[in-house]
């Protein structure tokens, strides 16, 4: 039986077209719809399935960020997590919170909570870093199973199928370990209304990075954030013949 720690991040909803702030300091987040990072939903789902299969006995959801981070923790609880930990980081400091800080926090919590598995999403769709799981594993000196599309527990090990560039790869990791979830690991469930109501009564502990002895001084300075170069709008062409002619003109085909 294992205890599973799952990291969840509140990000701008994946369907929102983001806007860069005019002063180039970041993107507009006020009044913009946020939700749980899609990869983290997959991570929670996997942990809850482990519990349902009696492979895990407790699922702990963790999120770092301002007060609103509790929204995604409640979602995680409604999906089936048993308890939640909110590591509160004030909005101002949250702007410069980096995977190195989050992974130190998660590593500390994994030890405090005596977790056997840490499951994280492969990347957050806002900073697109793809670092936190690997760094958490590095800080704990635990094995890492990144970009997992299938996980099976076997005695003191996990068998993991990973999505790699040329196909798939099978590895076997000793527990405790850190897993990062890829898109195809599972299909996350929706939280039902009764479960959302029940989630409000589940325990949610609040702490700060300081309580865990983690320094969150930024290591990377954001110089500026800009819009990407705009592509020139092209033309709608009438038929395949015109397309062939255009491709020949451009030298793409002989």
């Amino acid at each position, binding site marked *: 039986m294992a205890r599973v720690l799952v990291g969840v991040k509140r990000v701008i909803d994946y369907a929102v*077209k983001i806007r*860069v702030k005019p002063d180039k300091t970041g*993107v507009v987040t006020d009044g913009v719809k946020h939700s749980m990072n899609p*990869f983290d939903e997959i991570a929670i789902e996997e942990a809850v399935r482990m519990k349902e299969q009696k492979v895990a006995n407790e699922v702990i959801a963790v999120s770092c960020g301002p007060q609103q981070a509790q929204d995604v923790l409640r979602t995680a609880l409604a999906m089936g997590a048993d308890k939640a930990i909110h590591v509160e980081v004030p909005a101002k400091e949250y702007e410069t919170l980096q*995977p*190195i800080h989050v*992974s130190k926090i998660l590593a500390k919590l994994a030890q405090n909570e005596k977790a056997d598995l840490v499951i994280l999403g492969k*990347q957050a*769709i806002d*900073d*697109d*870093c*793809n*670092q*936190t799981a*690997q*760094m*958490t*594993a*590095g800080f704990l000196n*635990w*094995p*890492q*199973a*990144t970009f997992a*599309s299938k996980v099976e527990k076997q005695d003191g090990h996990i068998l993991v199928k*990973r999505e*790699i*560039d040329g*196909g*798939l*790869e*099978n*590895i*076997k990791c*000793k527990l405790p370990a850190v897993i990062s979830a*890829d*898109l*195809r690991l599972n299909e996350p469930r929706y939280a039902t209304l009764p479960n959302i109501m029940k989630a409000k009564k589940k325990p949610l502990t609040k702490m700060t990075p300081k309580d865990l002895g983690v320094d969150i001084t930024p*290591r*990377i*300075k954001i110089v*500026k*954030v*800009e*819009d*990407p170069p705009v*592509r020139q*709008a*092209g*033309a*709608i*062409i009438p038929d*395949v*013949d015109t*397309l062939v002619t*255009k*491709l020949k003109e*451009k030298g*793409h085909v002989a």
Partner: protein
Amino acid sequence: MLCNRTRHLIYQFSSQARRLQSTLVIAEHDNKSLSPITQSAITAAKKLGGDITVLVAGEQCKPAVEAIAKASGLSKILIAESAAFKGFTPESLAPLVVDIQKKSNFTHIVSGASAFGKALLPRIAATLDVSPVSDIIGVQSADTFVRSIYAGNAIQTVTATDPIKVITIRGTNFEADNLEGGSVAQETVAADSYKTDSTEFISQELSKSDRPDLSSASVVVSGGRGLKSGDNFKLLYDLADKLNAAVGASRAAVDAGFVPNDLQVGQTGKIIAPDLYIAVGISGAIQHLAGMKDSKTIVAINKDPEAPIFQVADYGLVADLFKAVPELTEKLK
């Protein structure tokens, strides 16, 4: 006289700066050949300035070492050959790199932002207690880099303040170094002590294909949900064969089981920038555009004139793909 002295000072200064800076490039290979993204990583390393050392670690390093041996502008190839690196697990490679780093004090550690580099470099960075910078698309100076965030919808310039910069580079944004014109010194590193039992490589299931590799192909034909089935992808394979192109897919096509996941182009799949990208039956969601909007020429074939893909396509054809694609294949004969 004065001019000479100034020149001398400048020379001293620049050679000092060069001495202060040194980069370790971690080569990616499969024991048989060097992965092309390593050539882009070497180009990025040259932009950083300073000495460049390339590390080749694996069970069979010879083919990769031979590929790099005649490169120009590199000072050394470190060779770490051992059964310990079976499957290139980060659990065995990270301690090797950290030990090399402790001995040589590189200012930069660089690798390609492939599945290999993405899995390995953050682990190295954590062990060194530095914050890594992922998937950079530009180098402004030795400590300031450009990268994309929010699926490529914003471009961020960042300065890394840690003493060691651990960086992965996006292959499509740095030209491949031709690995010619020089001769690189080679040095063997003791490597047998890195065997680990924490993670064991078991097997790989690689997709077999005679077509060019998706990440490096100059022409890519991609299919989406509009193809309706895996069998219909044959239409794209026929077209791809005409153009000597690689075949890619949108997430929708992968999720529907039409094609394997390693063909996915997008924010969380492969990021590519071929000369010609032909999107067939792909609507053009933000997450897909993130993976292909740097292509030189984009062609979209879609029957929905409102599809967002037409906003980035140089040539858009509003047509039924089941008619247009065979016709295109035919007319390219």
